[in-house]
């Protein structure tokens, strides 16, 4: 059907002249230096005296202490005459001598110091000397847990990899690095444990990341959207986490981890929908408690999506199905409301969304005030003014609360949004509308994949073994196998234990 297929328009390839450094940084060395010198933070001076070595660097990204203590003394004290001698004299690794303009530019822009004998000579000694400001490792905020590690990822890729490596000290934990972004040149690391991970997943991830062509990758959420299987889905197809323990545990299960420099979150994949109901502290409590919590979350999400829609459906079309005992309460609450249920529900849902949005944009202290003013004052006033009914206010507030029970922030946004189609279809066809809308979503979820693996996995395709760590969590002793969905190369997690001593009654 041509009608349904979008015509693929391939524009003629343009040679982009505005960002020329992609392949050829500059025509010649002089032009490159002219470009550097156009910035006020680029220093270039002769050292130790006139007509000696030329030292140049961006002072904003170079550590001054290192320059003063390790590089400049070598030039004055050892009196080298060639770049080779300088190179041998400076106690820093990875020093390169190059006349390749691209190498020079990349090095300088990532914090190297250039040393030249003759300012016109394009042979440069490049001493890596970067200093970057980074935040202290802090406690996780969006995925807070009462017990368990209190470390969260920060914006620096090295620190993040460090946080993972110290949890998994094996050489099989391997890393591939890719640079993406025409301007941002963002470093992206793909981590996996060789021997466990399905290499196909690694290849898929690397392939998709390498295929990205974009000017600036600022955050990992860019990557998450760009490499998603279905970019038009409201459902997130990767789990983003700020907890190194969750990342390490994902790696040991056989997942692929993606880290982006400058982003305090990492992505793990492939993922299934049940992973979004898994908080990492589920593993810190015994399995009964964890299972109950998970079931509570699943019901909370279903409640959050359906409750207002069912209210609208029942009060609009199926008022016969309200039990007689409940009827007086509902009449007392809704009797004075002048609007049809759908309008009432939309007003309240809209208010809650306003509060959330305002609360998220404001600083914490003001945000609390907004919460109190909005939640209590507006809520009470709206009911007293007869705009909305008490019952619906309660349902909406509960639904909003319930949508926060999901441990992963991305899916709670999804839940927030998909309530509205349910609400509208409830207005259209009552409970049947809710069922139709649910059927559309089920159909969508069935079609969805994450890195090519089915999104609804333990349910469809039905894999009973993977149910052990999905809606419920069985004890560690029964988690002997890694999830089947990940198609790991080595699926056994441990040797099944021999039976313990039986009690006297069994002998």
């Amino acid at each position, binding site marked *: 059907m041509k009608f349904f297929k979008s015509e693929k328009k391939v524009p003629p390839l343009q040679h982009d002249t505005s960002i020329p450094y992609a392949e050829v940084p500059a025509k010649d060395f002089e032009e490159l230096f002219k470009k550097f010198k156009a910035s006020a933070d680029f220093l270039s001076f002769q050292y130790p005296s006139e007509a000696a070595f030329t030292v140049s660097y961006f002072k904003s990204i170079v550590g001054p202490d290192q320059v003063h203590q390790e590089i400049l003394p070598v030039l004055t004290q050892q009196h080298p005459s060639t770049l080779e001698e300088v190179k041998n004299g400076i106690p820093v690794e990875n020093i390169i001598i190059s006349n390749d303009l691209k190498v020079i530019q990349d090095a300088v822009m990532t914090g190297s110091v250039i040393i030249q004998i003759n300012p016109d000579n394009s042979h440069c000694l490049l001493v890596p000397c970067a200093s970057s400001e980074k935040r202290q490792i802090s406690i996780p905020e969006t995925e807070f847990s009462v017990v368990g590690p209190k470390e969260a990822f920060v914006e620096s890729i090295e620190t993040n990899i460090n946080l993972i490596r110290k949890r998994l000290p094996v050489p099989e934990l391997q890393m591939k690095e890719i640079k993406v972004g025409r301007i941002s040149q963002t470093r992206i690391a793909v981590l996996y444990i060789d021997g466990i991970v399905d290499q196909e997943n690694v290849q898929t991830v690397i392939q998709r990341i390498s295929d990205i062509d974009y000017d600036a990758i600022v955050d990992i959420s860019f990557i998450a959207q760009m490499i998603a299987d279905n970019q038009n889905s409201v459902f997130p197809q990767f789990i983003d986490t700020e907890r190194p323990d969750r990342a390490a545990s994902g790696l040991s299960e056989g997942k692929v981890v993606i880290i982006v420099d400058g982003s305090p979150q990492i992505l793990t994949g492939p993922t299934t929908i049940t992973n979004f109901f898994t908080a990492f502290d589920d593993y810190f409590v015994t399995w009964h408690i964890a299972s109950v919590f998970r079931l509570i979350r699943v019901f909370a999400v279903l409640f959050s999506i359906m409750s207002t829609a069912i209210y609208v459906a029942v009060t609009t079309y199926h008022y016969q199905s*309200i039990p007689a005992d409940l009827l007086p309460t509902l009449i007392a609450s809704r009797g004075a409301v002048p609007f049809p249920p759908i309008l009432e529900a939309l007003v309240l849902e809209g208010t809650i969304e306003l509060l959330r949005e305002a609360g998220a944009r404001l600083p914490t202290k003001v945000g609390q005030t907004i919460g109190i003013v909005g939640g209590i004052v507006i809520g009470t006033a709206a009911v007293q003014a007869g705009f909305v009914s008490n019952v619906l206010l309660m349902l909406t507030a509960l639904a909003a609360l319930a949508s926060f029970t999901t441990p992963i922030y991305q899916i709670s946004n999804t839940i927030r949004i998909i309530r509205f189609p349910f609400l509208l279809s409830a207005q259209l*066809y009552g409970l049947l509308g809710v069922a*139709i809308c649910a*059927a559309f979503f089920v*159909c*969508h979820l*069935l079609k969805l994949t994450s890195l090519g693996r089915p999104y609804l996995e333990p349910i469809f*395709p039905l894999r009973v073994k993977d149910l052990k760590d999905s809606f419920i969590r069985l004890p560690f002793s029964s988690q002997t196998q890694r999830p089947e969905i990940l198609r790991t190369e080595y699926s056994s997690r441990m040797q099944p234990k021999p039976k313990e001593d039986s009690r006297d009654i069994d002998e």
Partner: protein
Amino acid sequence: MDNLPKKNRKVSSFFAMFLVHKMQIGVGLLGFERVIAKNAGYDAWVSILITGFCVNIVIWMSFRMLHKDGNDLISIHKHLFGKWVGGGLSLYFIVYFVFLTITILRTYTEVIQIWLFPGINVPVLLIIFGLLVYSCVAGGFRIVAGIAFIGLLIGMPLLLLKYFPLQYANFSNLSPVLDHSVKDLLLSAKAVTLNFLGFELLLMYYPFLDEPRKAEKWAQIGTIFTTAVYLFSAFVSFAYYTQEELAHSIWATLTMWKIVDLPFVERFEYVGVSIWLFEIIPNVCLGVWAASRGVKRLFAVNQRKSLLFLLFIIILSCMLFQTRQGIDQLNTIVSQVGFWTVFIYIPALFVYYMIVDKVRKRSK
């Protein structure tokens, strides 16, 4: 010539159970009791057993043919009767699948008209269903199997509602046991056929089953399960209604939902009919899928095109049936046609296939 589906398009063999069972549990379950009790009265449960057993035999025959052929009905027809006659027979099956789908869809919309929204705009509703079915079937066979499985998961708990009529059950309704003639029992068994129809779709989705030899066992289990569900439902209805009451209950099971008494909801049929959507959509999806796959295999057109074309036809024809009589007639005709197709044509085809197979082997 015949390209079989790729491995990653197939479903596990045990899904044969869900596929066979799902297609048999549909709108029929809501009101089959009156029809089957017409001839055999309250001995009709024997008829359910008879039909169930016959279906098991037909499934066995179908798998014998399919295992030998390795593909689907269309290639069997081609193999036996050549391009033109075989193609004509395949075309008949496509039309039959289309009618099966029309019956399911139209009967369900009738239920909605009667029980939920008397004044509903049927064309609009049908178009919405059409979009839903399109979005499922366009995802391929795996998605269709998935929606069948999830439909079953959502629908199964409704069986628990039989607890409520069982409180008022009067099992002496069933006695005297077996006081009807064999002829009556067989006539009722014929009437049960409509409820068991749909398993013959396995003639189309056979190549999509991984390890089809294992799938045979699962398909049989699926049918036995269907028989159990119908038997159980029939027993509950027979124990709840007297014969005279049942004769006037078009939707016996649906009517029984009325007495469901839960603290938070009354008139459960509103909820029930809505949830029943998840029982209907998979059946429609499977029917349309089989028909459009047939068109694809027969005329070598893109399945998306044939799907759109068939959905258009199905929705348009659904709109033609407006009255209760018309829909009842549709049900009766499809039941008759289905009976002949499943219990006469497929066994005949089986016998012919075996003979041809023997002769061709010998001549080699």
